[in-house]
């Protein structure tokens, strides 16, 4: 197998001292920007890009990639500690991670997030090394109809996500779809739901929305409690690392999440975010204790955290093999590679093997560095929870405000975040769940676009969804899922009917 030759060659490149140094710098910066809410990998990479123009190109790409997957490690930290997603893909980690922290299990949650990220990151990189070229070809087969069917599958999973009242969840999902469609319509270029406000022409950003909905609202909720009555985190911290039982509950979700994330990461449009949601929904469906989800189930941390990490590895495939970036970070890396005179595309692997294999090998090393870096930090992070609230909350608020502004240097984003903070506060008061809203907001516009693109392609015929093989398979899967959810219901109905007959 000459693939092993390539990988050894890659490690030779990655182990050069300068590349090791750049790799470490990258993952360190990545961890930091992941922890700071609002400041995500996009901002960090684009700010550092000009500084790398005079550095060796391979080392620079190794560093910039390190920032990207490093941010996925760091992103979970604030989700777990203070319910504020460090970046968009860590929203799901809030659901159970924060609940675990409230029960004194911040340590195991952070530990599991780090291990899940490590294992998934490594699996993702292995996938990237072995499967990149064939998967790139398959990715091209995904046109608008295939996307549409995938999005329908995603929304089907959303029904598992719902905790509590199904009616309330559906209401939230509808609002999410509407919010997701704010802005200029792709097909007609007409403004939708903008109320004549130019700040809404570009739509509502996911980051200010989740920061407001989950983080700011949590701050508001806590401010209203009197300091003495505050029950949060009063409990003694129980251990810093996941127990054996935690591992037993997490290993399945972790492996499933890794595979799911890797494949969804290849596709354009928020693969990391979508895969973390889908993983959460899937694990809740498969779990023997679905009622524990949302109340601190460690599987609800392990699954999504592994999914968003392996998605970052998957995202490299279309960039490196086709030269077509699938998200904002990849688009910036594309610009970087062009500047270095190594444009990614079908010819990259043969013309610049030191880059392709060197970067992939550096990702193995980077993942190990991240684990070593993050595990000792857990003790430090957990101490944050001991900071008195009158000091901690203004700080959280400040970081959120800076983070929201730094997204686009636009004060309007701060306004949006505060608006959603208020909305989130009301939602928590009246027991509406934020999760369906966020997922619908991500999936809704993608579904809307791909449906209309598909119908444009077919000249208006809906048959396009049933004549294409990939589409058909996905729709059959959707049918089966729905059937499986309905079957127990039918069984119960038959039972009651029989009982009624006996009576």
């Amino acid at each position: 197998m000459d693939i092993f030759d390539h990988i050894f060659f890659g490690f030779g490149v990655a182990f050069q001292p300068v590349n090791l140094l750049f790799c470490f710098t990258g993952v360190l910066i990545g961890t930091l920007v992941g922890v700071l809410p609002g400041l995500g990998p996009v901002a960090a990479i684009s700010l550092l890009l000009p500084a790398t123009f005079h550095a060796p190109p391979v080392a620079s790409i190794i560093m910039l990639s390190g920032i990207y997957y490093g941010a996925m490690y760091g992103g979970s930290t604030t989700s777990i500690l203070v319910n504020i997603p460090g970046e968009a893909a860590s929203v799901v980690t809030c659901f159970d991670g924060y609940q675990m922290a409230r029960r004194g299990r911040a340590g195991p949650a952070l530990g599991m997030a780090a291990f899940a990220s490590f294992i998934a990151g490594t699996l993702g990189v292995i996938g990237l090394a072995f499967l990149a070229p064939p998967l790139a070809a398959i990715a091209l087969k995904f046109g608008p109809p295939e996307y549409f069917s995938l999005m329908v599958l995603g929304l089907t999973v959303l029904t598992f996500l719902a905790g509590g009242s199904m009616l309330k969840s559906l209401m939230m999902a509808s609002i999410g779809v509407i919010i997701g469609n704010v802005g200029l319509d792709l097909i007609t270029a007409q403004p939708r739901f903008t109320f004549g406000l130019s700040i809404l022409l570009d739509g509502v950003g996911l980051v200010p929305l989740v920061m407001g909905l989950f983080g700011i609202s949590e701050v508001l909720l806590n401010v209203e409690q009197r300091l003495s009555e505050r029950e949060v985190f009063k409990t003694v911290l129980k251990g810093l690392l996941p127990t054996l039982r935690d591992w037993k509950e997490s290993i399945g979700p972790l492996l499933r999440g890794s595979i799911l994330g890797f494949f969804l990461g290849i596709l354009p449009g928020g693969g990391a975010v979508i895969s973390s949601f889908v993983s959460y929904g899937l694990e809740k469906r498969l779990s023997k204790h679905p009622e524990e989800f949302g109340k601190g189930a460690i599987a609800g941390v392990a699954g999504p955290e592994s999914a968003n990490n392996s998605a970052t590895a998957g995202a490299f495939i279309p960039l490196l093999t086709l030269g077509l970036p699938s998200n904002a970070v990849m688009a910036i890396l594309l610009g970087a590679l062009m500047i270095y005179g190594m444009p990614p595309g079908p010819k990259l692997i043969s013309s610049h093997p030191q880059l392709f294999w060197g970067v992939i090998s550096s990702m193995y090393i980077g993942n190990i560095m991240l684990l070593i870096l993050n595990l000792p930090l857990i003790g430090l992070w957990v101490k944050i929870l001991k900071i008195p609230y009158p000091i901690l909350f203004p700080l959280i608020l400040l970081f959120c405000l800076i983070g929201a502004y730094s997204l686009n240097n636009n004060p309007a984003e701060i306004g949006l975040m505060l608006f959603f903070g208020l909305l989130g506060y009301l939602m928590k008061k009246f027991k509406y769940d934020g999760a369906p809203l966020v997922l619908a907001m991500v999936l809704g516009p993608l579904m809307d676009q791909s449906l209309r693109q598909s119908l444009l392609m077919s000249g208006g015929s809906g048959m396009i969804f049933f004549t294409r093989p990939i589409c058909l398979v996905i729709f059959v899967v959707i049918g089966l899922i729905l059937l499986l959810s309905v079957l127990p219901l039918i069984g119960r109905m038959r039972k009651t009917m029989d009982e009624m007959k006996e009576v």
Partner: protein
Amino acid sequence: MNLSVAGVNVWTILTLNKQSEGKEAFMKKGFFTISLILVVIVFNSVEVFSDTFPSKPINLWVGWGAGSGTDISQRAITENASKALKQPILVSNVTGGGGTLVLGRLKPEKADGYTLANTSSATLGRIPHLQPVPYNAQDPLKDFIPVMSYSYYLYGLAVKSDSTWKTFEEFIAYAKANPGKIRYSTSGVGTGQHLVMEYLAMKENIKWTHVPFATSPQAVAAAMGGHVEVVSQTPEWKEQVDAGQMRLLVCWNDKRMPFYPGVPTLKEKGYDFAVQALIVIYAPANTPKEVVATLSKAFRQASETEEVKQILNRLSYPHDIKESEELIQIIKKDYEVNGKLFKELGIGIYKKN
């Protein structure tokens, strides 16, 4: 005429002076100003002025995200321009509205040359016909003055290399003979690459279907995957073309692309139409002509170094200098031509509901 120019100079010097703080500084600068006024009145010379501008750091906002091609190119040029102007130029990104939001922010700024914006010429020449903009949509040049342009965007029509159409003529002939059979992808309604296809449809009486995508790579991927027959787009197809997996049929720019001299332009094929969008640095309207000239010269010289030229080349941005006056004419003409086309096609703000 001379007097009015002198007046502007004096006024600018005075306003520049107002910003100095402290009595002592004012006394010193006051004396300096008076002598300068005398010099200006006597010689009324531009050179004197360019000695005083710029006297503090310049802010430059890029209308596209950090790490985008426009951003990278602007930052590369800025490094050199800042050396020439002997003042730092602070680049930051103000994104949104297809590059128009940055102009909305620039509009109320002081017209003194210390605040500039870099965005596409389409923000004035085309987008006002497409969507609401945060500045004068009837006459955008009332709000801004173009300082200079160092490059322009390339556009072309590409098919998969295994497709049957070898030339643009073959493709058009097929499209005319098979109404509704051709589907083309772009990165959005009302973009230059969409308009040219609708222009062709109108001229040649072709019926084809537009499938817009959210990003340029997606539009190219759709053609690569065979979901559409052809893609009309900026050079995101370049890697595929260079690898022999796609074929360029025609170039939409008014002259041939330096990177593909063998690909003909639409004009050569006998159509009086070209897509153009330049990368332009803007200042607020009423910025003194001398300031514009100073800035223009600095940016022009900065863009002519080998290092910058190499960066532009790698980004597929041809190095091409245009000065303020020429840009005004180009944008005016663009605005008219696009306005007519948008109305005829009934899209953008002229869409009938």
